[in-house]
């Protein structure tokens, strides 16, 4: 499997301190534990205290990583399930919905907007949210819990 990284993915990996090897492992070991929308896939894996995501596309063994990102907040239960997001979960071929999922960090549990598949109980967070609101939220938790 040939995996290449987009400039945007490389830039964010540098900011977040993510390693290419870790992202490759997420993609190679995902199996059906990933969601897809057309030719785009998102797979995630908990590495240490981080939930790390690979957003990638490609076929015939040639993969391009469009985005690689992470959050420190731990994913807990689905809180709300909304309309169809256009994504599907490869493991059970069920539609992935827009929703909200509880996140836990430093002992506090709060909700965030997510992609959810209610039957499996799985949730995913998109890159704009992980790099924006969730990163700011982590900073506020760290500051306010101190």
């Amino acid at each position: 499997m040939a995996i290449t990284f987009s400039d945007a993915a490389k830039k964010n990996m540098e900011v977040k301190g993510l390693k290419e090897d870790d992202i490759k492992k997420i993609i190679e070991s995902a199996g059906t534990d990933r969601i897809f929308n057309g030719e785009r896939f998102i797979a995630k894996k908990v590495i240490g205290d981080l939930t790390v995501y690979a957003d990638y596309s490609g076929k015939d063994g040639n993969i391009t990583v469009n985005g690689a990102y992470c959050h420190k907040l731990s994913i807990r239960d689905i809180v709300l399930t909304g309309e169809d997001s256009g994504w599907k979960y490869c493991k059970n071929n069920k539609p992935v919905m827009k929703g909200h999922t509880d996140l836990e960090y430093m002992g506090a549990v709060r909700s965030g907007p997510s992609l959810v598949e209610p039957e499996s109980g799985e949730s995913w967070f998109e890159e704009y949210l992980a790099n924006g609101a969730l990163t700011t939220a982590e900073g506020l938790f760290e500051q306010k819990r101190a």
Partner: protein
Amino acid sequence: MGYEELFPTNDLNGWHANAAKRFASPFVDNYHDRIDVDPIMLSNAAVHCGFTIRDFYEKPELGIHCVGYIAELFDLLPVTHWFFSLPWVRELGMTLVYKDTLPPIPTGPIYEPTAEGIENLKPIEKEDLLKGSTIPLFYNLYDYVQKNLPHTLVPISYGFDLVGASAELIGVENFIMWTFTEPDLAHKLVDTFVETSINGADALSDKYGMAMLIVGSVLANNDIFADEQVEEYGAKKMGHYVDQCFRKGAGPQIFYHLCGNHETSYKVFRNNLVWSPFTVIHVGYKGRIDFPSELLKQEFQDVATCMGSVDTKLMINPNPKAVYERSKECLLAGRDAKKGFILGNTCETPPYTIPGNLLAMTRAARDFGTYGTW
């Protein structure tokens, strides 16, 4: 002389340090002191400091300094805010005038209530907003706070009343009629204002790295509309506004203000709004009574910090005991909300709120504002 020279510094190590820890507590499950009190104080802060309502709105830096300063007197939130209900409309062509006893109000509708009348209405792009009046106003305001009241700074971008502000463009009564007769045009109006507000949040978060979002459903309430219309024009547009603002880097703090009567329409918001880790939800009235904290908790405690409502009418009634008793009811019903509780009024506390009534709210919070069993 700058406005900063009119005010002594807050007690930073005493009052402010404690208030800041208390303010954070409902959001991070680190309970401290008591439940906070937020009477949504705006021009009342200026009045307390000897200025006028007009001063508050005409001189935003003075207004926000009054808010930051006077919060210490009543042991309120340790953060500042300054706003009025019609951001972004000047960029869309409206003229606002200042009044002695009111926030800025429009001189009147600017579009004919016809399809041709709003044919050229388009969202204002971020680059054009930077040259307008709202963004420079808030940049100047937050620059002032950063320099003179940095301990109180929370950059806020306002969508505020997405429906009400849009309605002003053609006249509120015409807009209400359009929701029945010309829904496509009514949607175009609201969507134009929403997209403009999203671009405004983008500009604010560009400069400050984040932007708390304040957005409400004010005109879209049960005194005017059925639940279906509140959902269509209020809740769904608010959800879209926050979703798009988040995609542009704003958030993560959100304050949802469901103003006026949401007797049954409160039910249309839970599934349509975006809930972030730092969200506060506030509902004004259920029919003619201040919205019950028990019901607020039941509907929203899984997704947000709940802000209870003490009727603003009580705040100008010379009867602090009545405020104290109502605050007590509110606190006892709401204080064990899963994601925290704040004691508030049904809307902005009136400009001529009686100081004894504000003290009554804080006193009630001290007496009854612990987090349930804690």
